């Protein structure tokens, strides 16, 4: 590609490339976690916790079906991270290394690492110089075979054990989050979720929630879901009750973004965050932090992605979760409105300008 060097921009470094790979991987597993998580949670909801575990019943079949879909999460994540790094040639080695990560129980962390390994492995294989006549052979034989073999072996024999231990550590740590620790974790998750309204920081918190779901713990994800749902609702309330602090276009936008918020889509708040970042973002972060902390404190848990008002029926301790969202929304709404009022009071009014 005839890339245009951007002024002041750093060259596309390895770190930048890894970030892009990771976000690519996450973007492909989002629908998977919704499908698998919802099917599993619905089976548990409809057939009951015990009922869905009786062999041969519809409930059990659906529960294990959802579980199997979630089981694809690690290979898929790994495959698309590799795809993001070394393009199509990296996809299959990435899946393969992800299967290895699954086999050794290294979980979500293992999936991320195996994706990076496969991606860079294929990237280096691509640097091998070869005669043009062999292009087909390279693409259809060398890259998939050696890419998978090498990255698979690295997973199994080199870093598999330490990563599996790391994953085990994460799982046991997750099971201990309660009390003060849980609240701190909630504050971090909530603030991150509302920092960039669906951008990279939000996705980092999301990835942590997914890692926990993959480890069978839905508490962090429920906290994330509580925080990410509230900016849209809080902004709508503020624009409805105090229209004089907002532009006409913002009031119009405010009428619809509560709906996005209820569906767990934080992105509706972006236009507000862009036009007035120093008032909107901190007020959302504080509300998000409070909501996530309450969600964790009350032990709300959600094993399906796409968390929002739509997933309340499959949330554990749903009342606490709703309280968390409502409390966070009120806090965000109050802070935002006060900050907007200060700004409004400071802006010279046309009439006053004449008086002066």
């Amino acid at each position: 590609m005839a890339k245009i060097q951007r002024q002041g921009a750093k060259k596309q470094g390895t770190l930048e490339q890894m970030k892009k790979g990771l976000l690519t991987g996450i973007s492909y597993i989002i629908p998977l976690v919704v499908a698998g998580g919802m099917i599993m949670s619905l089976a548990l909801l409809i057939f009951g916790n015990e009922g869905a575990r009786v062999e041969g019943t519809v409930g059990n079949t659906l529960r294990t079906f959802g579980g199997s879909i979630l089981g694809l999460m690690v290979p898929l994540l790994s495959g698309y991270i590799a795809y993001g790094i070394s393009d199509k040639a990296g996809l299959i080695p990435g899946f393969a290394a992800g299967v290895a990560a699954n086999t050794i129980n290294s979980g979500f962390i293992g999936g991320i690492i195996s994706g990076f390994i496969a991606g860079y492995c294929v990237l280096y294989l691509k640097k091998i110089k070869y005669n043009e006549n062999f292009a087909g052979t390279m693409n259809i034989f060398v890259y998939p075979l050696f890419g998978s073999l090498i990255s698979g072996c690295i997973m199994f024999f080199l870093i598999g054990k330490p990563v599996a231990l790391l994953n085990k550590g994460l799982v046991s740590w997750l099971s201990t989050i309660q009390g003060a620790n849980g609240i701190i974790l909630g504050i971090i998750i909530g603030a991150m979720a509302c920092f960039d309204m669906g951008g990279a920081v939000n996705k980092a918190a999301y990835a942590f929630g997914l890692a926990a779901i993959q480890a069978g713990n839905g508490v962090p994800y429920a906290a994330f879901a509580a925080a990410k749902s509230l900016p849209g609702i809080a902004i709508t309330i503020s624009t409805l009750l105090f229209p004089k602090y907002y532009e006409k276009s913002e009031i119009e936008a405010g009428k619809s973004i509560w709906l996005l918020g209820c569906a767990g889509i934080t992105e509706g708040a972006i236009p507000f965050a862009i036009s007035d970042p120093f008032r909107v973002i901190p007020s959302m972060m504080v509300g998000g932090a409070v909501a996530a902390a309450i969600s964790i404190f009350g032990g709300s848990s959600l094993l399906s992605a796409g968390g929002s008002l739509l997933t309340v029926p499959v949330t554990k301790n749903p009342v606490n979760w709703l309280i968390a969202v409502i409390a966070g929304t009120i806090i965000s709404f109050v802070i935002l409105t006060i900050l907007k009022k200060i700004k409004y009071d400071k802006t010279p009014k046309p009439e006053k300008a004449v008086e002066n």
Partner: protein
Amino acid sequence: MYIVCVTSCPTGIAHTFMAAANLKKAGNKMGIEIKIETQGAGGTENKITEDDLKKADGVIIASDVSINDAERFDKLPVLECGVSEAISDPEGIIKELIEGIDK
């Protein structure tokens, strides 16, 4: 002047389309013909065709993820930026591309 763009973000439901809308608006305002392909959660929409590529003077890729079929732009000048930059400063991005082409 004819510019083709691709926008894409991790979730593929909001940033992708906001960036596309803002680039389009900025292009219209600057009097530049612009076509924007979105690679969102539902897949590729408004796909850039072979004919578009023949006509195009430059490419903007506004994405936080790896886009599909990046190799079709191999022969064109390409400016890459994050998707949020295209939302907040689309005119600046287009200007930067034009300056890059002129060089």
